[in-house]
């Protein structure tokens, strides 16, 4: 199904080289320049506002540049919010989510890709069907479920599901693992390796590019999650950045000035942007993997 290969093994045909028959028209370039400028405005305004002074913000006419760059906004934001607390909470939840996602989906995908058993393809249709289940219908029952377990207002509802696999990630990993040559696995089995060992010592290392894709996307999802913490976390000391900032913005609008809110937002976004620049090729692979038939 997925035709863009993510090169797991040498015997997968490389992509044809980029065609060069069509050259960039100026029309396309101008359109891209204009759109890029528009797409940069929110990010630009975020950065600029994060450095502005309160008097600068009070000016009748907004300025494209801060009249003076106020670095103290960041330390002030740190004090105005329990920023360090929220940040650490977000980091812990994200890290555990990534660990759970990588381990659980790797194991489940192995069961669908590398083991032969009767009914496998039919059961896999169930996986595909559940990809399209809207989260809205699960909202209330899952909330009740955690309530019965007395785990509302803890991090368990946010982390535990990642340890139980995700249909979409299982799908992605399975497609990747199917490209691993059977002979490689069978050779190890003949030499007496258990399935767990085949998974850990052969399949996992080969699948590293695909595992990186799901790690990155689960990290992004956990870091940016709003609805989960909104529903499950009530204690302020448990809050993540997403809800913490919104809560304080609503309850203390006079204390949380615009420049401080932007400075705090910038600090929330920065780790994601850094991760994007470090792992850009994995990002692009991950986005295009799901969409190409």
């Amino acid at each position, binding site marked *: 199904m997925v035709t863009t290969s993510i090169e797991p093994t040498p015997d997968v045909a490389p992509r044809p080289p980029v065609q060069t028959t069509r050259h960039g028209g100026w029309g396309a370039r101008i359109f*891209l320049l204009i759109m890029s400028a528009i797409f940069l405005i929110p990010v630009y305004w975020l950065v600029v506002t994060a450095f502005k002074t309160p008097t600068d913000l009070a000016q009748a006419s907004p300025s494209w540049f801060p009249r003076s760059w106020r670095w103290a906004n960041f330390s002030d934001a740190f004090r105005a919010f329990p920023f360090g607390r929220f940040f650490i909470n977000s980091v812990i939840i994200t890290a555990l989510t990534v660990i759970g996602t990588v381990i659980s989906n790797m194991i489940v995908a192995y069961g669908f890709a590398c083991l032969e058993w009767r009914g496998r393809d039919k059961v896999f249709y169930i996986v595909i069907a559940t990809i399209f289940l809207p989260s809205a219908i699960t909202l209330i029952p899952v909330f009740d479920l955690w309530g019965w377990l007395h785990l509302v207002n803890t991090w368990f509802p946010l982390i535990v599901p990642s340890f139980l696999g995700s249909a979409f990630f299982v799908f992605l990993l399975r497609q990747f693992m199917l490209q691993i040559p059977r002979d490689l696995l069978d050779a190890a089995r003949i030499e007496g390796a258990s399935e767990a060992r085949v998974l850990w010592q052969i399949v996992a290392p080969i699948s590293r590019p695909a595992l990186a894709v799901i790690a990155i996307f689960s990290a992004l999802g956990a870091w940016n999650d709003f609805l989960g913490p909104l529903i499950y976390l009530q204690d302020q000391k448990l809050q993540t950045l997403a809800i913490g900032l*919104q809560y304080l913005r609503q309850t203390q609008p006079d204390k949380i000035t615009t420049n401080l809110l932007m400075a705090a937002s910038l600090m929330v976004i920065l780790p994601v942007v850094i991760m994007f620049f470090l792992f850009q090729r994995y990002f692009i692979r991950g986005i295009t993997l799901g969409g190409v038939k």
Partner: protein
Amino acid sequence: MATTSVKKRAPWTRKDRAALGKALLFLSPWILGTLAFTVFPLVYSIVISFARYTGLSGIKWLGVQNYTRLFSDPLLGKSALNTMWYGVFAVPIGLVIALLLALAMNRRVREVAVYRTILYLPSLIPIFAFSFIFVVLLNPGYGIINKFLSAFGVATQNYLGDPVGAKGVIIGMAQFAAGNAALIFLAGLNNVPETLYDAAKVDGANAFRRFRSITLPLLSPVILFNAINGINAALQVFIPAYIITNGGPNNSTLFYLFYLYKNAFSYAQLGYASAMAVILFLVGIALALLVFGLSRRYVHYGLEV
């Protein structure tokens, strides 16, 4: 499925059972997850949609009362209409912008990697932070949008204070996520063989004709994918309205999922909210089937040359 003989349903051998047992071990996280977070929620939503249930006290059975109430609840009608208007504008506009961006990037402009990065950048920003930024951008005092538009003679106004304006802002904000769909389109465009265009050129087809007869049909599965993604997202639009407008002004941005959330977690009407969820689920399936049905006429899978 390597069945060599004609008999399709061979009896389960001991070896089959052993293989299944081993597989179940590997599948167990997914089985547990699917039971807890898919099967149970589906059944439970349907069950309590027929009851009055606050989450604390017991369940009181109401029959179809929650469903009949849906039809007489003016706020429900309003939230459904708000969501519909959002989807009618946001989904097609989003598809067109993403497709145009992908087509432009596919023109092999040399610095395409720069555009790709910039255009994807807003997709990285969490929706709550992006909403904060928009509140600032739109501020009538220090926001840049009013300043920019005033250069073209548009009077300064508070867009968030106006029902149509507020909805427009949330639709407009959603377009900044176009980079994501654009990259999916771009990958699809990369799979269109160059030779087809060359052959069409030889036959004298102009650019528009080539787009209509080659690009569009070959891209149709990707368009279908992005369309279904877009519809799904539109049905569940919620967070920007929660942060930017809190549903106002005059409930003009009270979207369906927002109202569902309020019923469930602010008013403790879990039974009624579940009825809303069941309806949303059915509408989602109906729309997906509709799109798939339409697509069967237009979507081409694979090259038949």
